[in-house]
């Protein structure tokens, strides 16, 4: 398998699947090249991200990135979340084949969009 055990576990048992009816922010991004799509909804309590959910369509790493990202996000502050990188996601999944890097990129892009939305709401 080109994928790690951790990765496969995320595929078999994705964490935080779904949408938050009470979400404070929702962001959805697509990769125009391959059509992959990630939807993120977050609830905030003050500085803290109190809940995170995802929906994803696309190749396996896109699903796994959604799962691992939401797992990371819950309990983080907005600023901590802003520091998550593609490398963090890749590492948390036990590595990704080079040609699948676009999945981590899409996840970070969606996260950034959500953070921009948070900032917008706050200002």
């Amino acid at each position, binding site marked *: 398998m080109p994928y790690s055990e951790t990765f496969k576990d995320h595929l078999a048992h994705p964490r935080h*699947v779904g949408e938050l009816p009470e979400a404070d922010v929702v962001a959805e991004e697509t990769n125009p090249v*391959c059509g992959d799509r990630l939807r993120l909804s977050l609830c905030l309590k003050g500085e803290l991200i109190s809940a995170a959910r995802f929906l994803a369509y696309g*190749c396996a790493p896109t699903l796994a990135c959604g799962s691992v990202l939401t797992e990371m996000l819950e309990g983080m502050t907005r600023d901590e979340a802003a520091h998550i990188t593609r490398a963090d996601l890749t590492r948390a999944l036990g590595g990704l084949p080079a040609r699948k890097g676009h999945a981590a990129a899409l996840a970070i892009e969606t996260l950034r969009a959500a953070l921009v939305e948070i900032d917008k709401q706050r200002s």
Partner: protein
Amino acid sequence: MRRVYLDHSATTPVDPRVVEAMLPYLTEIYGNASSVHHFGQEARAAVDRARHEVAALIGARPNETVFLSGGTEANNLAIRGIAEAAEQHGRHIITSQIEHSAVRGVCDALEKRGWEVTRLPVYDDGIVRVEDVIEALRDDTVLVTVMLANNEIGTIQPVAEIGRLVRERRAAGHRHLWLHTDAVQAAGRIPVGVEALGCDLLSLSAHKLYAPKGVGALYVRRGVRLVTQNVGGHQERERRAGTESVASIVAFGVAAELARTELDARAEHVRRLRDRFERGVAQSIEDVVFNGDAARRLPHLSNISFRYIEGEGLLINLDLQGIAVSTGSACSSGSLEPSPVIRALGRNDELARGSIRFSFGKDNTEEDVDYMLEVLPRAVENLRRLSPLYQRAQAERAACETQPVVAGN
């Protein structure tokens, strides 16, 4: 964990009878078939026997059968060999939109070198039309290459009709027109006869019929001249140089013999399993699309698009439960593109990305199918729960259902 292998179009396990037959050629009988001495002649005799068996599988003569390293090389040699030999008569090739990557690759390479390539459509049933071949034929056409059965959706192409057409044209004076067919997926699964097909060249690969990977054959009809690609020694009547892969060739021979004698029984067995599987899927999973003509299709193969999800995630989920299937052609995994074969059926990208190939083999059982039918619906359901496309579609459906019925209807 229970393991269910449903990827026989990617490769097949080697039949134990085949292993047994080849083993002596990995141990005590080790001569080089080109050597004049005893050790060499034992090897030569074994290669000759295998050549008879492989030829018999397709109704050819032994000396029309060239051994080489697999189906990919067979396709390369056939197309490039004819193209280079017939170049002065024309530089136009007719092929289809659903060929294996080897045929596609050689045609693309020739196109870059100034050849013209017509790629015939296959419509929503995945089948080439003879009328389209007629329309595409030009005076400078030197080769028609259309596969006998497709590796992703299993559709069987009208090669015999194309063969008749090519022979008619040749009789009418179009002398340098040849027909090649890639029979890698068809051989051992449906009857394949070079006379009935009327083809001039035909590709085979051993590992699709219960022999090892890395050996294949190209049928070259007597009198057809092609330019050798792998040059060097005098092996294979100068058509393909390189020390013969004796043990693998012996294995191929035995596997070809078994494929010929057991063809009907194997076909019936896999067809029963495949049909049972497809009925089960139709009953238990919504929003699926069966790809490829239902009737004109290899008996062992089923290709299904699961709406709203992508194939790779499903493949991995099945794999985690011991089930091996594939998304599109095994050869093109690693590419980000949706399957060109499913797209050629006129399906959108989503359906092309959501397609999975299930390919049965002679050793699969009804229990395998039952296990599959237990695991698959749940796996599809779990992935759809993740899918924003599915959620949206569900929401729309719910909206429709709650919409007030228009009065007066």
